[in-house]
């Protein structure tokens, strides 16, 4: 049994400690907004925040997340108000299929926390998520819009 703190709430999870954090979040806690895309920390669909740092949860053991504040896409809105990145995503109609967008949004939210007015180069460096639908043009526009919101 490991204790995880997800979106401010404690969850006691009965899993093997080597289980990837992604699967504990999805299958044991039941938060399915965080996605599986590759299982080897390349595509970014599984991105969550760990103590505020964007982290790929598919290749990290759940035991390594104990004692840390985990934020998933479901916890990004505060007091019922969507995060400015989510709002910009809606305004710019960023998602196509939408499957990779939870991870993309979590990466963008961390970028704006650290770099409030990112340049295009900052975006290129920070956003390394794969999107097979090809939403990048709208992702870039929405990040700039959120920065100026």
């Amino acid at each position: 049994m490991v204790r995880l703190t997800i979106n401010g709430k404690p969850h006691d999870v009965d899993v093997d400690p080597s289980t990837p954090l992604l699967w504990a979040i999805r299958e044991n806690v039941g938060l399915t907004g965080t996605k599986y895309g590759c299982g080897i920390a390349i595509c970014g669909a599984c991105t969550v925040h760990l103590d505020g740092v964007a982290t790929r949860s598919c290749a990290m053991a759940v035991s390594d997340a104990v004692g840390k504040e985990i934020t998933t896409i479901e916890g990004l809105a505060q007091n019922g108000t969507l995060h400015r990145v989510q709002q910009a995503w809606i305004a710019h109609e960023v998602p196509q299929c939408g499957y990779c967008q939870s991870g993309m949004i979590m990466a963008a939210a961390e970028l704006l926390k650290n770099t409030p007015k990112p340049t295009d180069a900052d975006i290129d460096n920070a956003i390394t998520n794969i999107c097979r639908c090809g939403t990048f043009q709208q992702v870039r526009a929405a990040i700039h819009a959120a920065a100026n919101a």
Partner: protein
Amino acid sequence: MNVVPNINRRTFVIGSAAVGGGLAIGFDLPFGGPVSAGATGNGPELGVWVVVKPDDSVVVRIARSEMGQGTITGLAQLVAEELECDWSKVSYEYPTPGQSVARKRAWGSYSTGGSRGIRESHEYVRQGGASARLMLLQAAANEWKVPVEQCSAANSVITGPGNRSTTFGKVAEAAAKLPVPDKPKLKDPKDWKIAGKPIKRFGIADKVTGKQVYGFDLTLPGMVNAAIKESPVFGGKVKSFDAAKVSGMKGVKKVMQVGDTAVAVVADTWWQAKTALDALPIVWDEGAHAKVSSETIAESLKAGLDAEQAFVGNQNGDIKAALAGAAKKVEAVYAYPYQNHVCMEPMNATARYTADKCEVWVPTQDGEASFAAVLAASGLPADKCEVYKLDLGGGFGRRGAFQDYVHQAVTIAKEMPGTPVKLLWSREEDMAQGRFHPVMQCKLVGALDKDNNLTGLHMRLSGQSILAAVRPQVVEQQKGRDPLVFQGVADSGEHAFGYTIPNLLVDHAMRNPHVPPGFWRGVNINQNCIFLECFMDELATAAGQDALEFRRKLLGKHPRNLAVLNAVAEQVGWGKPAPQGVFRGLSHMKAFGAYVAAAAEVSVTGNKIKVHRIVAATDPTYAVNPSQIDRQVAGSFVYGLSALFYQECTVKDGRIVELNFDSYDSMRIAQMPKVESIIMPAGGDGPWGGVGEPTICVAAPAVLNAYAAATGKRVRSFPLKNHNLELA
């Protein structure tokens, strides 16, 4: 903990209760098995497309699937346009495939591929909206005892003589009792107020909050999870497996063979199932193809380039004489690899089986194909089967004609009656068991006369037929020929060749390796556009002519081809100086009924190619949602350029080598060029074109032509990573 999505929102439940005293409108379909007002018999429900509830809300039923391409929104716009309803009151639902079968295919085709979603159903869904409007008007006229000609509808409100006014919801129940007008007159698109506008797509908010339920997210009470491994060598079978080694692992419920070719582990959670499956010793009978490699396949295709026997796809004049009499001959051989769709959401399906009912929840591009797989795998009759469609985390052609994962899920669920089983493929399984973009080589020979006019072109394709594997009956009807191979270079139709060349031969030597081919976004236009449009630049260079002018001379008889090419040339600044170090390339094609062109600007530094900008033009005859089209165009370039630069499924020992993104890369935001989309619908009465696929084919040749302009080098086999070229 269990998350049960609100399936009812997207599921049509038969019976008047579901209609809520509202209105449903049906009409004859172009597909067989039409449902007339009398055919369904009972209740106020007459037909299929529109429900108007007493509170004025409108539910539009959509048979096609949504995978981010915007089809559901576009189709709803077309229905709402004719209905004259308030767009803010519109929602949608998916009628289930089981209902479609029960009601004799009342909603027509469910297939969401070939860029067909809108272009092949716009007429009958608009008629559905128009019929509904006429019935509502008639009901109001009857109530007011006035001629219907004096009533009009706008924004869900009906007005009549003497300041009479009512709403759709108030007359819907009476309207539902009226006969359905047959083939109502449709609006002139010039008068469109909802269709043709960049209306926001449905479902965006749920996709930014994690609420959207994909097939992979579905949880049902009591559900268990399955992981599967099929013979990595195509055509191989399971010889044996040692279930005892893993059956005691935590959470494991069952270790089982699935058909002849696969083994599955069922466990409480998918991670447990996958962990046990990875630890399970499996011995395969690898079958007849265990020695096949990319090299042996390439040799077989190469032999086809000069083979005597080939199927003709497009022919005029006398190509032999033209080549024999040429002042100058130009020759080149190109090769295109196997590629995987790599949908971000791996293949999955959830099945629940009992002797009385088999239900499947699945993200599918074709609900009817899924339904057929449920029937086949369950052995139950149609009235005991049902499919619930969920939105897709990517489709790109993998989730339409091929329902292997549905078949597997049902097969597993049959071993555990009453227990819902969610089958999810690992990314590695997804990559190993693709239905791959087929391999093709192409030898092109062009003839130039002494004045450097193009007098002849022979384009010999050699490679794999998708239809021979997937729709063999079509190939049989064509006496062994696969007409789809000629997409973009065909003699007529939605994939017609655009150039007028006095002596032309396009033919195909069919070579079918054991790797299963499939429909991959754009299908055969991907390679055909590279072959043709790169070679046109090679011919222009040999003729000492500008690439645009060379093409223009050959496009005089095809004004819509010429128009899109001219549009991108003008906007990119063709003929004017490019920025320092930047070079340009062009391409164009007619595909899926749409005319498309691209002009790319690239610079080259060492082995790094930077694509700065691509101007794209699309003429789909009518543009239902321009904002959605812009996104499809830019997205298609990401898909197409990822393929061009990075993607090859290599075959070794009969199996696929690349099993994840570490060896099969995909473009990131840093590599994304600026895409400028020109939408230039020509209108008129002709067939509409698609938008999801056509532009995918023009990006690669435009970039390759710009690369050749920059370096003088031609690359003729792909992906470019094999030539140590990188996308910067």
